């Protein structure tokens, strides 16, 4: 039972990091019909920026904010400079482009910051808390991980559901032509969407680095797990992405805890295959209605 609780807490904590990546992928997919394969590499790169400024004497939290801001900027620049020009080209162009960006960032990072594995500081203790002599199986850092991702999710929910700009982002994502006619600056909405997605990714990178360490490919597995979560959730649904990613986090934690950590990636693929065979649209997937 004790092992089960430990693996559950681990699963939820990791699952929240995967959820941040999954949500970022879903946001970009909904807005531009592109899977951003560079999402993990972008997160890795912004984490390196935080690492660099912290190493050079910047206080941790300022470095944290700088990484998030760098994520916003990197997302916006990626959309504006790289994605926009291939917007009207076949979908494969954008796929190749994001794969190219992944390779570019993973090559650039070691040139700028070194290729060796670095330890990245956790903002809070990773030692499990105790209450009245009873061990609780989770640490302050776990609470921070879950809390910060939840906070950003709530903020994004408020943005999309309760503000006019969120409404316009949803409208621009669903039908850009009508949105343009109605005066919505579609390009700006898409840039904002990419920026917010990259912000989420940057947060995931900062939360994953203290656990996974920091090296140029440290987010590759996280991207795969986040992607699996997004697909399980239906790729269209933000709620589905979070639920799917949490499921992946838990499943991987149980597989790696009870069966061995080498089997974790295999477990992720098995879940993906099972969901796609039983429900190809994903758990929360829906048929899109489009006016022809």
């Amino acid at each position, binding site marked *: 039972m004790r092992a089960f609780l430990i693996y559950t807490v681990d699963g939820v904590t990791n699952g929240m990091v995967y959820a941040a990546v999954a949500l970022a992928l879903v946001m970009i997919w909904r807005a531009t019909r592109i899977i951003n394969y560079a999402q993990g590499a972008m997160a890795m790169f912004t984490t390196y920026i935080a690492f660099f400024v912290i190493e050079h004497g910047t206080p941790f939290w300022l470095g944290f904010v700088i990484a998030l801001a760098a994520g916003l900027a990197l997302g916006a620049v990626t959309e504006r400079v790289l994605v926009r020009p291939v917007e009207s080209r076949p979908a494969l162009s954008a796929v190749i482009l994001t794969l190219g960006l992944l390779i570019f960032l993973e090559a650039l990072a070691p040139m700028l910051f070194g290729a060796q594995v670095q330890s990245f500081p956790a903002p809070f203790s990773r030692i499990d808390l105790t209450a009245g002599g009873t061990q609780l199986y989770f640490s302050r850092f776990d609470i921070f991980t879950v809390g910060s991702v939840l906070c950003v999710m709530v903020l994004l929910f408020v943005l999309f559901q309760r*503000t006019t700009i969120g409404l316009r982002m949803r409208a621009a994502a669903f*039908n850009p032509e009508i949105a343009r006619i*109605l005066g919505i600056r579609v390009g700006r909405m898409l840039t904002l969407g990419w920026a917010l997605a990259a912000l989420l990714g940057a947060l995931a990178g900062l939360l994953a680095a203290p656990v996974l360490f920091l090296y140029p490919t440290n987010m590759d597995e996280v991207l795969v797990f986040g992607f699996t979560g997004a697909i399980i959730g239906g790729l269209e649904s933000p709620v589905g992405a979070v639920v799917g990613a949490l499921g992946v986090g838990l499943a991987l934690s149980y597989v790696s805890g009870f069966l061995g950590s080498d089997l974790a990636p295999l477990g992720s693929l098995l879940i993906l295959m099972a969901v796609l065979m039983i429900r190809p649209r994903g758990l929360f997937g829906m048929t899109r209605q489009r006016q022809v």
Partner: protein
Amino acid sequence: MAISVKATLAPLAYVTSSGVLALTAAALEVGDVSVRFGGVVALDGVSLTVDRHEIVGIIGPNGAGKTTLFNAVCRLIAPAGGTISYAGRSLLREKASRLPHLGIARTLQGLGLWPTLTVLENVIAGSPQRTRLFADMLASPASDTRAQTTEGHAMSALGELGIADRARVYPGSLPHGVQKRVVIARALTAQPSLLLLDEPASGLSSAEVEELIVLLRELRTRMGIALVEHHVDMVMAVSDRVTVLNLGRVIASGTPAEIRANTDVSTAYLGQPVAHA
């Protein structure tokens, strides 16, 4: 600088780029516009004006170039030649998303409603009100006031179309005729001075078409309307002037009575009369 002033019911005042107040009769002026898609000439030297407080019907067989003309006006496609101006201001350098800010609203063929947004959200999305990300996120008092104003305009547009009670439902659950009204309400929430309607009567019952005619006559008191429509009887009933396109060219232009009497128009629609022995 010579300023041309044409006689009109309600001249529209505007400030030119040089800051001179000028008057013009025609709100929308399309001059000698050509559009090509590769080797296909979709529009060939089309000219058209729409004044304020008038309804101009644009009819023609399928493929005549009616929607292409709207798309050119709305900057969704770039003309190969010609001029398009609104209130004396060239639209050729404007982005499509700027047009509602200049007072031009448009509906599309079909519905074009967002099924995942409620009726009210669909209409609010058509409001050209400026948004401010951080103020909106923090729900600042100014942002709240702005949101209330936008919602007020949207509700008033829905009220004008008689569907305010459907504001909170999703458009997919509504009958086609009501969805058509939502589309027009969405265009009206921008409080336009020129309304471009693309087949507003398609799929409507005769009773609904009659109601649409009444609505358009009411709207004419506030704005100019260009109407692309296959429902020729409706166009003839409601339009002040009618322009007929065929194969990308204007083949006739005049009052509904003149158009009815035009043999080129009946030929375009019905073909050459068969000579009897």
